[in-house]
């Protein structure tokens, strides 16, 4: 589904990623892990085209998307939830969802489906998104990615700031989507969630892939060691 080979990118003259390669097969859930500042967000941003790749390629569904603009990647079926509960602050919650569903050229019913996954948003539809609490915004961000009806979800710490009961639901939702054939590329700090969900792991350190493998092959202690400071 998604294949990243030899990806390099960074900010200005500062290089952050050094030849990262990874593979997300159809319907597969790959979890990217690593300590703070190793380049996880940079990786996802480069995969989405927010940052230009200085070397390497990104192929989605057999198509080279390395030079495509972010919105073109979205329209090909890549749904992205960036880190840090982002939203369009002055649009209403419904406006946030509508603008996304329209941009992705999906039917309005996609909004209702997403709201079923995040029912806590339903009473908030008319509120300005900027006024929501952090956790509410994060739920909105997830919902926004869902309304594009992606074929692959790219999630950067989706559970950050979310209350426990909803984390469980998000986890369940990801599991459900994954089960229904959606590919997922996930960055997650909660190790146990990652362990439960992932088919494959990629562990980053200093912009390099230091470990990769099937979930079953990796021992928890092993992972922990690699993630330790």
């Amino acid at each position, binding site marked *: 589904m998604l294949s990243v080979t030899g990806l390099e990118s960074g900010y200005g003259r500062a290089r952050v990623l050094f030849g990262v390669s990874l593979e997300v097969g159809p319907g597969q859930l790959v979890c990217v892990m690593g300590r703070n500042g190793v380049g996880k967000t940079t990786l996802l941003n480069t995969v*989405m*085209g*927010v940052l230009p790749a200085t070397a390497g390629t990104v192929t989605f569904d057999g198509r080279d998307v390395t030079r495509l*603009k*972010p*919105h073109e990647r*979205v*329209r090909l079926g890549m749904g*992205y939830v*960036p880190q840090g509960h*982002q*939203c*369009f*602050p*002055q*649009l209403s919650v419904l*406006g*946030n969802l*509508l*603008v*996304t569903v*329209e*941009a*992705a050229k999906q039917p309005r019913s996609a909004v209702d489906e997403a709201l079923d996954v995040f029912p806590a948003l339903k009473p908030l539809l008319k509120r*300005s998104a*900027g*006024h929501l609490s952090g956790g509410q915004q994060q739920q909105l961000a997830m919902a*926004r990615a869902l309304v*594009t009806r992606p074929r692959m979800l790219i999630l950067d710490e989706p559970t950050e700031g979310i209350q426990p009961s909803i984390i469980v639901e998000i986890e369940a939702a990801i599991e459900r989507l994954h089960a229904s054939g959606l590919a997922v590329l996930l960055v997650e700090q909660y190790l146990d969630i990652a362990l439960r969900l992932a088919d494959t792991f990629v562990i980053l350190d200093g912009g390099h892939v230091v470990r990769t493998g099937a979930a079953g092959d990796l021992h928890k202690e092993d992972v922990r060691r690699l993630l330790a400071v």
Partner: protein
Amino acid sequence: MTAFVNQLPIGLSIGAVLLLIALGLTFTFGQMGVINMAHGSFIMAGAYTAYLLQDFVLALPAAFVVAGAMGLVLERLAIRHLYGRPLDTLLLTWGVSLVLQQLARDLFGAPNVQVTAPSWLSGGVGILPYNRLFIMGLAVAGVVGVWFYLTRTGLGRRTQAVVQNRQLAATSGIDTGRVDMLTFFIGSGLAGVAGVAVTLIGPVGPALGDYYIVDAFLVVVAGGLGQLRGAVLAALGLGLLNSYAEFWSDASLAKVIVFAVIIAFLQIRPQGMFVLRSRALT
């Protein structure tokens, strides 16, 4: 006494002119955050379009397209490199306005030119000439159109999304480049329409834009950035204030009074009449 009463419709009609020239700015400045000093030049371009066509009615849509196209070119060539740096766009667009003004001087000559107003616009009811009524009508139509576009169409929503979070908009599937172009096209086009309208009441020359640009910004600022209803109220308020202040004093003092009132007003409402508050820190 009648002269005093007359100032009311005069104030409203001044307000309508202000509103019309500021309407485009609610897009380029209010929506996109571009402090577009070339707005005045687009007004001028609209006026010269009317001069070239010498057909007032035809000039309205034509000026929209001409000025809009100029705005679009400006956006593509230059402004798009400067998003997120609103204060820099001010300087850039000012440079553009210098060039356009000199260009007009070379193309059409330094002296003013004349646009013949259609005969059905001569005459009037009471104190208000038909041409003033026409400008008021045009302003109302413009406001309704802009309101509809911004709040009732997906494009309007996309415009807002891009302004509020450009990167998120892109990763939400919005073609930000197209939205920018379109927004700039409409904002500049509206300036062009205003340019046609002001040929009814003022000079048509290379410096045309200079006469309106400061007022246009004040309207948008006093109303609250990107707030249509704010712009409407601010324009009418400033129009009335101007008309009565000038009636009681003189044109110079009236302008000073208007500025003073705006500064005082921003003491009460520092972000203009209407603000969308955000929880985010800046």
